[in-house]
């Protein structure tokens, strides 16, 4: 274990996987100069043919990743900001997400699209989206959101080794903090597996990306009031580890979902739906979503802070559920405490 920033952990993952497999390629806009630092030094180490600076041409880059993967390579296409996925979206949605299916399973597409998501850096509306709900909805992409450096390393290594298209997203607001990161070159976290970041019996908080830290802070504060919150980080949003979430909810009976994306058809909305469908009998209170709402991310820090959920909003949501429950003995009596499924 050594302490690393998220970008350092990602850089280690890329370097280790490039070392391990000569077919791993890294390409994208400014991967040599490396704006965030994840690709720093890779070009010098692995050569300009495997680590390739590209023009600002997302429509082409996203499609080239599909072509290169179909031809046997394992490209990692760095799209810089998650919002730039929109300009490269055609090949991601129409080719990568469907290619294996529509050719009857003829081809594997071991490729990774990378991007930075979320607000907190005053990058304004076109550089702050948490784009994962749109990606989850495609059905043919694995969608990974890393919330801390250790997870980022293990998840990215898994994404590169996976034979399917994976979108690997990192939360912008977390990139300067240092966390312990395993040094093991085979530290690979399986995709599709959630992590219980904190155990608790009274309440489940599912938190995504930058919200994981806020949820842990909230859980700490709740504990001081005698409420033990369990914090779950799905880590992979598609395929989602539904069982891990439902197991927790069936024990606690209360669910808060903290998600830095929009409210309508967001990740929180989907998680809320599965809790309603599959853990209804266990719920002692309505599911509560804590999101940005349906609004673009503003530039000015006070506005941005007001919209991005944080510890305070999560604590308030949690207390609301506990109090709603305490105020409704009939509802408490009705709740069976067991999952329907």
């Amino acid at each position: 274990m050594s302490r690393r920033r998220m970008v350092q952990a990602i850089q280690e993952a890329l370097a280790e996987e490039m070392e391990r497999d000569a077919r791993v390629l890294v390409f994208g806009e400014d991967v040599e100069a490396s704006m965030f630092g994840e690709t720093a030094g890779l070009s010098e180490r692995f050569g300009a043919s495997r680590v390739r600076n590209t023009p600002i041409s997302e429509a082409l880059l996203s499609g080239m990743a599909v072509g290169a993967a179909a031809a046997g390579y394992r490209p990692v296409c760095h799209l810089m900001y998650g919002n730039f996925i929109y300009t490269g979206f055609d090949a991601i949605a129409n080719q990568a997400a469907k290619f294996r299916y529509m050719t009857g399973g003829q081809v594997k597409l071991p490729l990774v699209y990378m991007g930075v998501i979320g607000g907190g850096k005053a990058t304004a509306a076109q550089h702050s989206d948490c784009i994962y709900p749109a990606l989850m909805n495609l059905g043919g992409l694995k969608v990974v959101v890393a919330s801390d450096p250790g997870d980022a390393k293990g998840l990215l290594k898994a994404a590169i080794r996976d034979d399917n298209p994976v979108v690997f997203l990192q939360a912008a607001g977390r990139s300067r903090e240092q966390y312990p990161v395993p040094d093991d070159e085979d530290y690979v976290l399986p995709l599709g597996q959630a992590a219980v970041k904190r155990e608790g019996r009274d309440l489940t908080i599912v938190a995504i990306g930058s919200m994981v830290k806020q949820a842990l802070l909230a859980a700490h504060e709740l504990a001081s009031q005698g409420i033990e919150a369990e914090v779950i980080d799905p880590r992979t949003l598609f395929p989602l580890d539904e069982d891990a979430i439902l197991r927790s909810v069936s024990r606690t009976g209360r669910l808060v979902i903290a998600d830095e994306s929009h409210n309508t058809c967001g990740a929180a909305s989907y998680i809320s739906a599965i809790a309603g469908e599959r853990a209804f009998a266990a719920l002692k209170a309505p599911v509560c979503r804590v999101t940005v709402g349906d609004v673009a991310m503003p530039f000015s820090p006070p506005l941005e802070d007001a919209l991005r959920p944080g510890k305070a909003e999560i604590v308030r949501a949690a207390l609301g559920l506990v109090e709603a429950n305490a105020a409704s003995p009939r509802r408490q009596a009705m709740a069976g405490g067991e999952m329907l499924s």
Partner: protein
Amino acid sequence: MQLTRSQSFVACQKPIFGIDKQLALYRKMLLIRKVEEMLGNASLAAELPGPVHLYVGQEAIAVGVCDHLAETDWIASTHRGHGHFLAKGGDTAALVAEVFGRETGICRGRGGSMHVADFSRGIIGANGIVAGGLALAAGAAWAAQLEGTGRIAVAFFGDGAANQGVLMETLNLSSLWKLPLILVCENNGFAEFSPSATVTSGRIAERAVPFGVAHRTVDGNNLEAVWLAAEEAVAHARGGGGPILLEFETYRLRGHMEQEMAFLSKTYRTNAEVEERRSADPIRRFREALIAHRFATAADLDDLEGEVQDEVVRAKQAAKAAPWPDVTGAKDFMFA
């Protein structure tokens, strides 16, 4: 950087290759034509599950280009992709079964007409997105360059696709990286239901100029002219010369899709125009040249046509007799 090889073949004066090659290429064009005429009729008879976009009139391009490609070379095609599939060596019966939506289809009924692909033969596939194949071919060309074994990639696209921004992106990057990539524009006069002149400015081949990409404009209805241009382009790409853009002038004898007049609110061309362009039908022209140069008699070519027709009939019968995909497998193949 425009290639300067003589264009004297345009008039198809003298045959440039021997009788076996002449007949093999003629047969391939005929196979594509007969498969598509059958599919057109099947569409009219409501035997096909979905739309088909036919390649009738453009066969010389797929056949003339793919004749120079090895099985390991890559092609990315278009929604009008049956011809490229067959010219690159794709299996006729597997293609037909796919268009009929059967389990025995090349994509097990998951793709249909717009997605026929065979990776074992370098066919990255037809593509339902106009210009969708350009980036895929560029990616395959990058892979080929990294491998260094001499493979190349060919992107077929239409004049309609030339108006997608990704063509500019592809010309720029492939020139910069010297990718072994041939960009084959089949200018068939129509972008879906719009005449090219109403939606496309300038010459498409000349869009290569500012990127320093070699380019050439060739009669796409003349098999020999196509074949020669492709020979040169393949040598250029394989030899490390980087990308090249070939614009083949041709004419789409069928509609954008079959039975389009059943739903279009107005016509976009006259029947007289289509009839007039039939005189330049590449298969008719090639047949006349074969007879004129005494490579074959009309009777020989009629026999060949009969053989091809039999193959197509067998493929259709096999497809119709084949099982539909098992619905319990409807969710298979999303992930490896």
